[in-house]
C-alpha cells in the first residue's frame, strides 16, 4: 500500500465549508475542468488523498483513493496484464481516478466494454455535510441496498467527494490489431452495423475523413482470420492512434472549438451539419466542431442528445437537460447527499 489517507483533511475542509455555507469546487488533477459549467467555489483538492488500497489480480478488482493518479493505476494493472476495460481518457497526466469516475467518461473501447459505471463495484464518499458513507463493495455481485455506487459515476462530484473507488478490471487480450479501410460516412456506418452484429472481437472504431479504423483483440490466429474476412491494411502504431482519439490529440480535434459530443443511435443518419464528424463507438458517439447551438435540435431529431464538450469561454448550458420528472429526482437526491448544496454547485446544470 502506498500514498496517503487524506480522509481527515478532506472531512475537516468539507465540514468547515458546510458551516460557512461556502461552495466547494472539487479538484483532482484539474484536467477536465473544461467539461461542465464553471463552479464558483473554493477549491477542494483531493490530490493529497492517494494510493492503491487493495489490488489482487485474481480478484479482478482494484480499490484506490480518489486522488490517486490514473496513470499509477494503469501502471499497476499493466504489470499484471490487466486494464481498466472502459479505456478512460485522462486529458492530462495529472488525471485522478476520482475525477475519472466523477466525469464518467469512457474511451474508444466503450462500444464493446459498456460505460464506466458498469465497472464501479463500490465507493466510499464524503457527503456534503461531512458524512463518510460506504456503498457497494469489492465483489462482483452485490444486491444489498440500493446501488448508490454506480449512481456516483458521471455525477461530477455533485453528490459527494469520492474518497475510495473499487473498480472491476479485466485481463488484457493476447494480441491487438488495428486495421484501416476506406469508406464514406454512410458506408462506414453500414459496415459498423454489420460488424457489431457478428461475434467478431471489434473493440474500437473511428471514422474520420473517409477512413474507417477498427481495432480487434484476441489471439493472433483470430486476428489473422478477422483480417481475412474484412480486409483492410494494418495500422502500424495502433496504440498511438487510439491514444490520440481517446485524448483528443488526433488532428481532427486540433484547435477546433466549440466541440460538441453527440450521443445518437449507432446507425442514425444525422441531418448533415456543414462539417464532417469524427465518429466513434460504432456510431453511438460523434464529435462535431461547430459554432452553432442548432446541433442540439439535430441531435434530438436523430434520437439522441448533445453535450458542449469544449468551448472558448464559460458556457451557460453544457449538458442536455433530462425530462422534468427526472429533474425532480435529481433535486431530491442532491438534498440527500448534499443538503447545503456546497459540492460542485452548478457543474452539471444551473440549478444542480
Amino acid at each position, binding site marked *: 500500500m502506498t500514498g496517503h489517507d487524506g480522509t481527515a483533511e478532506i472531512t475537516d475542509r468539507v465540514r468547515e465549508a458546510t458551516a460557512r455555507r461556502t461552495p466547494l469546487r472539487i479538484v483532482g488533477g484539474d484536467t477536465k475542468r473544461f467539461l461542465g459549467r464553471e463552479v464558483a467555489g473554493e477549491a477542494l483538492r483531493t490530490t493529497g488523498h492517494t494510493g492503491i488500497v487493495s489490488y489482487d489480480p485474481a480478484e479482478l478488482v482494484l480499490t484506490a483513493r480518489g486522488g490517486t493518479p490514473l496513470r499509477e493505476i494503469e501502471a499497476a494493472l499493466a504489470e499484471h496484464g490487466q486494464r481498466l476495460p472502459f479505456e478512460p481518457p485522462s486529458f492530462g497526466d495529472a488525471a485522478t481516478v476520482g475525477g475519472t469516475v466523477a466525469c464518467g467518461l469512457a474511451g474508444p473501447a466503450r462500444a464493446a466494454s459498456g460505460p464506466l459505471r458498469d465497472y464501479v463495484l463500490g465507493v466510499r464518499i464524503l457527503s456534503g455535510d461531512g458524512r463518510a458513507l460506504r456503498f457497494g463493495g*469489492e465483489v462482483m455481485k452485490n444486491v444489498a441496498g440500493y446501488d448508490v455506487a454506480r449512481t456516483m459515476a458521471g455525477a461530477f462530484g455533485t453528490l459527494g467527494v469520492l474518497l475510495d473507488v473499487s473498480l472491476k478490471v479485466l485481463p488484457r487480450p493476447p494480441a491487438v490489431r488495428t486495421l484501416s479501410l476506406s469508406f464514406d460516412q454512410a458506408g462506414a456506418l453500414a459496415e459498423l452495423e454489420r460488424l457489431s452484429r457478428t461475434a467478431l472481437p471489434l473493440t474500437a472504431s473511428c471514422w474520420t475523413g473517409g477512413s474507417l479504423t477498427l481495432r480487434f483483440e484476441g489471439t493472433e490466429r483470430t486476428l489473422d482470420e478477422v483480417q481475412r474476412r474484412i480486409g483492410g491494411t494494418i495500422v502500424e502504431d495502433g496504440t498511438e492512434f487510439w491514444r490520440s482519439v481517446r485524448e483528443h490529440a488526433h488532428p481532427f480535434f486540433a484547435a477546433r472549438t466549440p466541440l460538441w459530443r453527440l450521443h445518437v443511435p449507432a446507425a442514425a443518419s444525422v441531418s448533415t451539419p456543414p462539417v464532417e464528424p469524427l465518429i466513434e463507438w460504432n456510431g453511438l458517439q460523434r464529435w462535431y466542431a461547430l459554432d452553432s447551438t442548432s446541433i442540439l435540435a439535430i441531435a434530438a431529431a436523430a434520437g439522441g442528445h448533445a453535450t458542449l464538450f469544449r468551448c472558448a469561454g464559460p458556457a451557460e448550458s453544457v449538458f442536455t437537460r433530462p425530462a422534468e420528472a427526472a429533474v425532480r429526482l435529481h433535486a431530491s437526491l442532491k438534498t*440527500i447527499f448534499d443538503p447545503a448544496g456546497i459540492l460542485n454547485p452548478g457543474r452539471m446544470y444551473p440549478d444542480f
Partner: protein
Amino acid sequence: MRPDTTLLRELLAALGPDAVLSAPESCVAFECDALTAHRRTPDLVVLPRNTAEIQAVLRIASTHGAPVVARGAGTGLSGGALPVAGGILLVLSRLNRILEVDPQRRLARVQPGVTNLAISEAAAPHGLFYAPDPSSQVACTIGGNVAENSGGVHCLKYGLTVHNLLEVRVATCDGELLTIGSPLGEAPGLSLLPLLTGSEGMLGVVVEATVRLVPLPERVELVMASFDEVARCADAVGHIVASGIVPAGLEMMDGLALRAAEAFAKCGYPQDAAAVLLCELDGLDHDVQQQLEDATGLLRRSGATTVRVATDAAERARMWSGRKAAFPAVGRLAPDYYCMDGTIPRRHLATVLGRIEAMSRVAGLPVANVFHAGDGNLHPLILFDAGRPGELERAERLGADILELCVAVGGTVTGEHGVGIEKLGPMCTQFGPAELEVFHAIKRAFDPHGRLNPGKAVPTLARCADYGAMRVHGGKLPHAHLPRF
C-alpha cells in the same frame, strides 16, 4: 383481513371482474414467492393487462393509502413479493408481450411479464441472445429480474441485469410514468438506472424494459475438473481468473452437492470427488482453442484428479444438467432446505468453505455448496426438517452466521437473490445507520408515503437495534426461546 370495500369497488370498476381477485381461496395462490417459509394470503390481487391499468391501480391505491406489492412470476428467493397486510398484490404476468426485437440496434423492448428465456428465444433467429440467465429463467420475468438485478451462471463475462439493461419505464407510486436510462446507453443527467435496478419494487413498478442483446458465441466448450480436496478446487478458481481467462461460467459443487446431482441427473460426475468445477469457455474458434489448452493445463497443475472436456453439445448439456438440477437434487436429501446467497472475494473461498463446514457440524445441520465460483457468489444450501421443533430457527441462525462471515471477509449478504424479507437482519451487519438512513431517504424521494413494497429490502434502524441486541459474536442468541420476526 377483509379488503376495504370502496377500494375493491374502484379496482373492479377500473379493471373489470376478471382482473381483480378478492376471495381468499383465489388469493391464496399468491401467498408467497419461492421463499416458502414466509406466507401471507393477499387481501387483493390485481392482474392488469396494460400500462394504463397499472397506472390506474397505483392511482387508486394512492388515494386509499393502500400498499402495493409488485410480483412477476413469484420465483424470487428472498420474499420480495410476500404480500403485505391491507395491501394490493400487483401481478404483472399478463403483460407478457415482446414489443420489439431490433437486431440492428441489438436490443429488445419488452413488457415486464415476459420471461427471461423468451427474450433469448425471440432474439435467437437474429443470432443474438439476452445474457443474464438466472436458474429460474424458464419462468422468471424481466420485471422481476430488474427488481432483483438478477444474475445467473454467465455473470463473470456477461454481467448482471444492470449491465444488460438500457432503459426502463416505471410507474411511480402515484401512477405517473417515468423513463429512466436510454436505448443509447447513456441518458442525460445522473445515472438513475442502476438505482432502479435491484431496488426490489421499492421505488417504482417496471412497466417496460429495453435490454441489450449480444451475439451468440461462435464456439462453446465445457471443461469438468474434479478434486479430492475442496480447498484445492477453490484455489483453482483463483488460478484461472488470474491467468487472464474470463470463463463464460465457472461453477463449483462440493461432494454432498455433486453426489446428490449425480443421483438425480446421472450427469457423469465422479462420485468420489470432494469437489467438481465446471468451466465454460466461449467466443471465437481460435480464442476458445487457446483458452481451452490454457485452462486444462492450469486445472491439472492446480491438482485436479481428472479433467474432462465435453466432446459435443450433448455431453455438454449432460454435464450442465447436474449443476442445473443441483437445487432440487439436494432438496431430496432432506425435507427442507434453505438457500443462502453471500458473495465473497474469491481469495477467501477455501477459508470460508472450511468455516461453513465447521459451522455446519456445530449446528448439526448438513450444508451442501453449489455456487458461482467465478463470481465468489456462494449458495450454501442448509438441510433441515421444519417438522422438527426448532430446526427452522436453527437453520435460519446458521444462515445468518454464514452471511455475517461473508461480510466479515469483505463480502455481501446477497449477491443476486435480494434482501426481501429474508435478509433484513443481516443487512444490519453490512451497513451502518448512516448508510441505512440514506437508503430510507432514497425510498422517500421516490415514494414519500412508503406505499411500494413497504417493509422490504432495507431494515429500519429500530430493527437493527433489536438485531444487534439479539445477536452476539459467535452467533449465539442470548434469548433463544424468543421468536424472531
